[in-house]
């Protein structure tokens, strides 16, 4: 067993802390505009000021403040869409693997289809028809996730189904539903948790990409992807606007990915191959 990944834990802890306590960590508002102070660079540049440590955007909003609040958006979207997408994948995986037969081949066809067709297109479609918002974003990212969960969980269930304890439960007269919920489900929870952790990074990138494409959380709510998009046009005069949020995304995603790898090796080394 490798020792605890302290760096990852610290960065993830820091992000969660920032997300929860954002209002207490900064004197500025993430949304209110202070036009006289617009486009100030970070404090280390000649014209920067320590009042705005990482500078301000075109509306004079503090970039650091928006980054802190952006962590909140990122985490909420990530948690909800993993819950929805992972939950659907888990249910389909168990049903497909345990019940088998026609249902299984139908569901696995759908999974194959979901793998070949880029879910981002459906996500964009939803953003146009349903309008931008948290609910749209969660459904859209859920669409991105379910198939991967379903396929792997199904594989686990196929193996579990053959085990003696399932046969024993059947002899005892347990209903199929009861077997799935009380006997199969707890046994795939390890794999499920590993999949959740391994997918956090992908979800954060998906959220940022959709926000960047104008299909995420609508402005003025700060989202890292949106901040990159807003700063894009000003890249030659105000680099900090899009480069800083990008660094935040990359760092957090990297951290979650490393943490996910560690957790996988710890809990479920079988998944190594993926």
């Amino acid at each position, binding site marked *: 067993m490798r020792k605890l990944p302290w760096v990852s834990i610290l960065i993830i802890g820091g992000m969660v802390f920032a997300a929860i306590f954002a209002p207490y960590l900064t004197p500025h508002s993430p949304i209110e505009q202070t036009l006289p102070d617009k486009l100030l660079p970070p404090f280390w540049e000649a014209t920067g000021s320590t009042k705005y440590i990482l500078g301000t955007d075109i509306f004079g909003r503090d970039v650091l403040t928006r980054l802190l609040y952006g962590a909140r958006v990122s985490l909420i979207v990530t948690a909800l869409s993993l819950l929805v997408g992972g939950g659907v994948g888990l249910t389909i995986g168990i049903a497909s693997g345990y019940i088998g037969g026609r249902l299984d081949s139908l569901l696995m066809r759908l999974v194959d289809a979901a793998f070949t067709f880029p879910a981002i297109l459906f996500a964009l479609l939803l953003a146009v028809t349903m309008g931008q918002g948290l609910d749209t974003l969660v459904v859209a990212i859920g669409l991105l996730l379910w198939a991967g969960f379903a396929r792997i969980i199904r594989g686990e269930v196929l193996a579990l189904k053959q085990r003696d304890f399932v046969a024993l439960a059947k002899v005892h007269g347990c209903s199929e539903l009861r077997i799935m919920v009380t006997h199969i489900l707890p046994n795939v929870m390890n794999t499920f948790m590993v999949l959740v952790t391994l997918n956090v990074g992908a979800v954060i990138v998906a959220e940022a990409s959709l926000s960047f494409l104008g299909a995420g959380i609508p402005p003025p709510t700060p989202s890292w992807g949106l901040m990159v998009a807003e700063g894009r046009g000003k*890249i030659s005069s105000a680099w900090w606007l899009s480069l800083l949020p990008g660094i935040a995304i990359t760092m957090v995603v990297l951290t979650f990915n490393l943490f996910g790898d560690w957790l996988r090796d710890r809990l479920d080394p079988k998944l190594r191959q993926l």
Partner: protein
Amino acid sequence: MQRYIVKRLFQGLLLLVIVSTIVFAVGRLTGNPVDLLLPEEASEEERQAMIEALGLDGPILEQFVVFITGAVQGDLGVSIRYRQPAVDVFFSRLPNTLMLMPGVMLLAIVMAIPLGVLSALRRGRLTDRISGTIAVLGIATPNFWLGILLIYLFSVQLGWLPSSRMGDWSHFVLPTVTLGTFLVAGFMRLIRSSMLDILDSEFVKLARIKGLSEMKVVWKHCLRNALIPVLTLWGVFMGALVTGTIVTETVYAWPGVGRLTYEAVIFRDYPLLQAVVIMDAVLILVINLVVDILYAYVDPRIRFT
């Protein structure tokens, strides 16, 4: 072999049916599709004409039939922004996207294969660590941000390369690198892990015992077999490529299909977006079919299972 092709074709058509059903359903889910399909300033007469054309006052099944019949004949509605058939707009942009692909593929192959093979050969050593770090970073860096970072470095700071739009060869460099990097990380890791499996197998030992040079063993016997999983996962890479194209073309204002997708979202041009989604599905289907057939041709094990 014929049975295999027919089976694949059938699976592809199934995907197309699923995609168009979802597109249809999503369009009707949110109230009146006329609002989505017509520009806001459309007159009452235009609205009535569309309601009749699509049978929107009729039963939902009938509407679906009208939609599918139109789709099969290549009629996916009129783009609100461009005021011409959405399918035509799609095809006018497609060549620009396709022009990017040879470079992207070349870059992905030239970088991923040597790095993947070398890190498998020197597992755990410095080369492996470096390529591992590149892969981990490549996966964690969002494509759109990498694009902006490259613009900042090479256009703004150094002034070497143009930052947007099409033009001479120099306009191709940054989009190609951005999109290529996106694929390289995944490719490289895949080649590494399948190389590791194959280096362990019996026929490699045999080749060595026969006294073949290490060069031949690795680059011929091993690599050929290691590339099979890359073909297997081709479909997944295609999906990633479409996603990457949307983001990359948006960053570089590249007038291709990806940028068109973004415009359709930004301008809420639903008919155009619907056409792009369905045409993308058709393209993916055709390319995957060709790859699958080639794959079955290369690896006889596939066609008999």
